[in-house]
C-alpha cells in the first residue's frame, strides 16, 4: 500500500510541477531527480561515496551539446552521449573500485578534476571557461513545456529501469556489499566487480541526465563538470534520504527550491545551505524521506491512541 502512495504523490507532483515552478526550474528538478535516484543506487544501496559524479553529468551534457550543435537530431545526441558516459564510467570505475573507503573517494575526485581541466583547457571544443553555449534545441522541443514533458517521459523510463535494478537480485547483492563486503565475498560474490557495476549504472544514468540538461538553458556551463557539482549531487541525495528509492527526489526539490529562493534574498546563500547540510548529517541521517516516515508513524500512534480512548 505504502508504495502506491509515494508513486501517486510523485505523479501528482509531475502534473502540478509546471504550475508550481517555472518551466526551466521544474525541468531542472526532473533532470537532477534522475541523477539523484541513480546516485542513490551507488550511495544508498551499495554504500559507495563518489565525489566524481559531476564528470559524468558534464560529459553527458558536453557530448550531447556538441552533437546538437553539429546539427544532428536528438535521437542521436542522447544515445551517443549516454554510451560515451558508459564507456568513461567503465574506465574510471575499473580503477576506482581497486581501492576502498577514503582512497576510493580520492580517486573519484581526482578523475573529476582531470575531466574538469580537459573541459577548461580545450577551448576550441568545449568553450573553456564560458562553457558550451548556443546549443540549439530540436524543433519539436522549442516550447519549454514540451521540453518538460519530453524530459519527464525519459525520467519515468529511467525510474522504471532503476526500480528494476533495485528489486532484482542485483539490488540485493549491492546491499550485501554495503552491509558487509568481506562476507559478501566469502559467500561467492566478486565484490569489486559488483561495485563497478553499481558505479557504472549510477554514472551512466547521470550522463543521460546531463544530455537532457544541456537543452534546458541551451548551454553546458563549465561548473556542471566541476567537482563542486559532485558535492551538490551527494548533498541532494543525502538530503532527500538514501533509505528510500524515491527519497532523493525530495532532496532535489528541496535543494533547487531553496537555492532559487535563497539566492534572491542573500548573495551568500551557500552559507545557509552549508548549515542545512550540517543539520541533516547531524540530526536527520535518513533525510527528508525518513523525517516524513517518522511523522506518519507518530501520527498513526497518535490516531490509534485517540481511537483507543474513544472505544474505552
Amino acid at each position: 500500500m505504502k508504495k502506491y502512495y509515494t508513486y501517486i504523490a510523485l505523479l501528482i507532483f509531475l502534473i502540478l510541477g509546471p504550475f508550481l515552478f517555472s518551466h526551466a526550474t521544474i525541468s531542472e528538478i526532473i533532470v537532477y531527480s534522475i541523477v539523484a535516484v541513480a546516485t542513490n543506487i551507488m550511495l544508498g544501496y551499495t554504500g559507495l561515496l563518489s565525489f566524481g559524479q559531476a564528470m559524468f553529468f558534464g560529459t553527458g551534457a558536453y557530448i550531447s551539446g556538441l552533437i546538437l550543435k553539429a546539427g544532428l537530431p536528438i535521437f542521436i545526441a542522447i544515445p551517443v552521449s549516454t554510451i560515451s558516459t558508459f564507456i568513461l564510467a567503465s574506465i574510471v570505475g575499473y580503477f576506482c573500485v581497486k581501492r576502498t573507503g577514503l582512497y576510493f573517494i580520492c580517486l573519484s575526485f581526482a578523475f573529476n578534476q582531470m575531466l574538469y581541466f580537459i573541459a577548461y583547457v580545450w577551448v576550441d571544443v568545449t568553450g573553456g571557461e564560458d562553457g558550451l553555449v548556443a546549443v540549439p534545441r530540436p524543433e519539436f522541443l522549442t516550447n519549454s513545456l514540451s521540453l518538460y514533458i519530453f524530459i519527464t517521459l525519459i525520467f519515468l523510463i529511467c525510474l522504471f529501469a532503476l526500480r528494476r535494478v533495485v528489486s532484482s537480485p542485483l539490488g540485493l547483492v549491492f546491499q550485501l556489499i554495503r552491509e558487509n563486503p568481506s562476507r559478501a565475498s566469502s559467500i561467492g560474490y566478486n565484490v569489486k566487480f559488483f561495485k563497478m557495476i553499481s558505479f557504472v549504472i549510477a554514472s551512466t544514468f547521470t550522463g543521460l541526465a546531463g544530455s537532457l540538461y544541456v537543452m534546458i538553458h541551451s548551454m553546458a556551463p563549465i561548473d556542471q563538470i566541476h567537482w563542486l557539482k559532485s558535492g551538490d549531487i551527494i548533498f541532494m541525495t543525502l538530503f532527500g534520504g538514501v533509505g528510500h528509492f524515491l527519497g532523493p527526489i525530495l532532496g532535489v526539490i528541496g535543494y533547487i527550491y531553496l537555492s532559487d529562493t535563497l539566492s534572491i534574498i542573500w548573495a551568500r546563500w551557500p552559507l545557509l545551505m552549508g548549515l542545512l547540510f550540517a543539520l541533516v548529517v547531524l540530526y536527520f541521517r535518513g533525510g527528508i524521506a525518513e523525517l516524513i516516515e517518522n511523522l506518519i508513524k507518530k501520527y498513526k500512534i497518535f490516531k490509534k491512541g485517540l481511537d483507543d480512548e474513544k472505544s474505552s
Partner: protein
Amino acid sequence: MKSLLKTEGLSKNFGGLPAVSNVDLSVKLGDIHCVIGPNGAGKSTFFNLISGELKPSAGNVYFKGVNITGISPHKLPKLGISRCFQITNVFPKLTIFQNIWSAVFAKSNNGIFSFLGNFKDYPELENHTHKIIEDVGLSHKTYAKAEELSHGQQRMLEVAITLAASPELILLDEPTQGLAPEATKEMTKLIKGLSGKYTILLIEHKMHLVMEISDLISVLSFGKIIDEGTPEKIKNSSIVQDAYLGRR
C-alpha cells in the same frame, strides 16, 4: 581414506616473524578435523591462508587434488568450500531470509542475466532457503532483520549462511566464540549434526567441545604442527601439555 584438503609446506611470514611455518595438513573426506593451539599459535592465519584472505609466503593448498593456493575468496563457494567466521559476520540490516538466500543464489547463479530476474523466478532457491532456516531453528524469525537477533542466534545464522552454499568442506573459525553455555550446547549439537554430511575443518578453543566432536586433532604451536592424532592421543600427549603450559 581420500584426503579432501591438503596443505604442503604452507608458510606465512609477517615481516621477519613466521606466523605459520611449513605446515603439512591433510583433511580426510567426512572427518571433523580440529586445529587447536595456544593463543597466537597461528591458527587464524593458517585459516586465512586456506581461504585466500592471505597469500602464503611459501607452500601450496590443494582441494580435491587441485592447487588452489592464493585463490580469490569469492571463488571458494563455487568449488565447494564455505567459510564461517570467528566474529559474527552477517548482513545486519537485511532479513534472515535475504541473508541466506544470497548465499544460496551465489552458488546456484548461472550467468550475469540471472541477476536481473525476479525473486519469484527462483522458487527452488526459496524452498532451499526455508529448509536451511528450519534446520538451524530460526524459522520463527525468517523475516526479522539479522541485527534484531540475539548473539547466539546470529552465530546460528552465520553457520546457516555457511551451509547455504551446500559446501563439501566447511571452514569453521571458533564457532562458539563468546557464546553463553546454553548457546554453546546448541552449537555443539548443530556441528555434531553436520558430521557425516560434510567435511569440517575447525578452529576451537573450548577443549571439551574439541574432544567431544573431533575425529582428528592437529595441535599448532608457534606456527608449527607439534602433534596430531585422535582426541584420546592428544589428551595424553606430553608435548601438547608442555605447549599449553608454556614449558617448551
